[in-house]
């Protein structure tokens, strides 16, 4: 997976980037299954590998697929990444040990869901129960996010061509 990311950084042909993206997101799905996150794996596989690959490719159909060579010095980006990385390392170092049940993470809210979800919602898949009922509001928000994104794309792309041609003339020239 890390190899795929390095491949993405290095390669300039956007198609390669998309291919590697597809492989990357699939490997992520496998890791998720290993972490018992089955629903998430399915979503990542469906959305990550399926949809974003198709969308990226549809875009590449419209856009030049060669990336211009790097122009300015990579110093600032490296600095930014270094700082963020350091902060993350600092933060994650003393997180509770991996895989243990008795950590606060898995002791506080999760047991309730595991115990009562079937009783209260009749759905053996606790994730679906939490997703739709306990934290149903999050999912409503999430559906609204897709709705927003969808309409946003439609605003940009499916508007009449008249607007598209007018768009290219710069605002200032047409006072």
């Amino acid at each position, binding site marked *: 997976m890390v190899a795929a990311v390095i491949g993405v950084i290095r390669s300039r042909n956007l198609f390669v980037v998309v291919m590697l993206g597809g492989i990357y997101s699939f490997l992520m799905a496998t890791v998720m299954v290993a972490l018992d996150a089955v629903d998430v794996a399915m979503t990542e596989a469906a959305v990550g590998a399926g949809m974003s690959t198709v969308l990226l490719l549809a875009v590449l159909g419209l856009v030049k697929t060669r990336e211009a060579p790097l122009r300015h010095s990579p110093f600032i980006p490296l600095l930014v990444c270094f700082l963020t990385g350091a*902060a*993350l390392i*600092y*933060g*994650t*170092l*003393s*997180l*509770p040990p991996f895989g243990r049940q008795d*950590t*606060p*993470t*898995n*002791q*506080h*809210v*999760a047991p*309730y*869901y595991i115990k009562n979800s079937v009783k209260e919602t009749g759905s053996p898949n606790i994730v679906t129960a939490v997703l739709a*009922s*306990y*934290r*149903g*509001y*999050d999912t*409503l*928000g*999430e559906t*609204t*996010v897709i*709705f*927003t*994104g969808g*309409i*946003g794309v*439609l*605003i*940009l792309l499916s*508007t*009449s061509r008249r*607007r598209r041609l007018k*768009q*290219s003339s*710069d*605002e*200032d020239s*047409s*006072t």
Partner: protein
Amino acid sequence: MEFLQEQLPALQVVLPLVAASLCALFRFGYLSWLITLSSSILSFLVAVFLLLRVLEQGIISYEIGGWSPPFGIEYRVDLINAFVLLIVSGVSAVIVPYTQKSISARFDSTEQSWFYCMYLLVLTGLLGVTITGDAFNIFVFLEISSLASYAMIAMGRDRRGLTAAYQYLIMGTIGATFIVIGIGLLWAMTGTLNLYDLAGRLPEIKNTRPVLAALAFLTVGVSLKLALFPLHLWLPNAYAYGPSVASAFLAGTATKVAIYLLLRFFFTIFGGATFFTETPLPEILKILALLAMFAASIVAIFQSNIKRMLAYSSVAQIGFIVLGISYATETSLTGAMTHMFNHAIMKAGLFLLLGAIMFRLGSVKIEALSGIGRKMPLTMAGFVILGLSLIGAPGTAGFISKWYLGLGALEQGEWWILVLIVSASLLTMIYIGRVVEVAYFREPTDEVVQLKEAPSEMLWPAYLLIAAAIYFGFDTSFSADLARQAAVLLVNAVY
């Protein structure tokens, strides 16, 4: 009626959400405007009733889906977010009548409805973030408002609106992801996502590394959304090249909600005096705030596009607010929240007026505006009044908030900060003065000569805000006094 009273918190967000969906469903321009208008006004009324109930009964807790926190998602309304809800829904309710004229002129029926849909979704997102008591829910609704605002900005007349929206998307998403990382670290340490349950569990693990890292990530994330000084690069283009209605709405509300988030995290959750003030964060914020106040104001002075100038001015005013936050005392927080309130009114009004000028003249370049003072007297008069309020001239709302900020600084004995506050206002005077001078003391160009005054339906909403800017300069029972009560809650980390 009693049942409806209980359901107010949910109603506050569901109303604009359903309205947005209806707009997208019918896709008929005028109808969408009516839906937007009615739902904005209704959500403002809901905010008012909520505030009254909070004043009466204290903190309201509402369990969504009937599950008690921390298992379900909880809406918790106290004075702080009731105050912000009022600002957001108020500004939005005022702006909607204004939009009809300029939007119907530029877009066809479907695009109009989509614009209103985006407008309502930004409103839904912002209200959702302000009212929710659940950490992850904040992220979800933040993304709703952000995505909708990216789309709205991209609908600007100028092609540069597209790149501005793109930059805003990139930086906004990085910000949101930082926030999620912060929330994740906190969840990993406590197991809960409910803000107030979290606040209860934080003291024991206060200075463990993940909690400190979470604080850092959250601050950086929210600062990105807030456009706090070094992270403000996306704001000027976004406000300048987006439609004026969008700039007015976002300037009036989006940054305010980000500030609310800072307040909520620093004081209510991270325990204000017990934790936040011990970290080096207040010092850093103070420096950044001062930098914002000066650098942004100076840059604003040299702008030729007035909308960009006002955008930089927003960055500077945010610096003022963050300065108030960095002191973490009752008075300075009152000043910060009052300025949040006043700045929302002022900046929304200014952008509306600029929108009117854009609508008539087609440009907001400073040279193009020479001698416009006579041709669009009401618009420019409004601009002067709001400009004065921005400077903080007495008799306007701006003065009150700057007064409290100054007082806050002096109480800490840091009189040199007072001088900085004051000289920053001086810088504000210079760039406002530039516009006033061009507008009034220059011969009108030929385009300006045959200009007519802005249409009335664009003017009266702006004048509503102008009246508010003056009214709250004198009677502060709703702005400063409310802010003070909220500040008391914040300083003692009451939840």
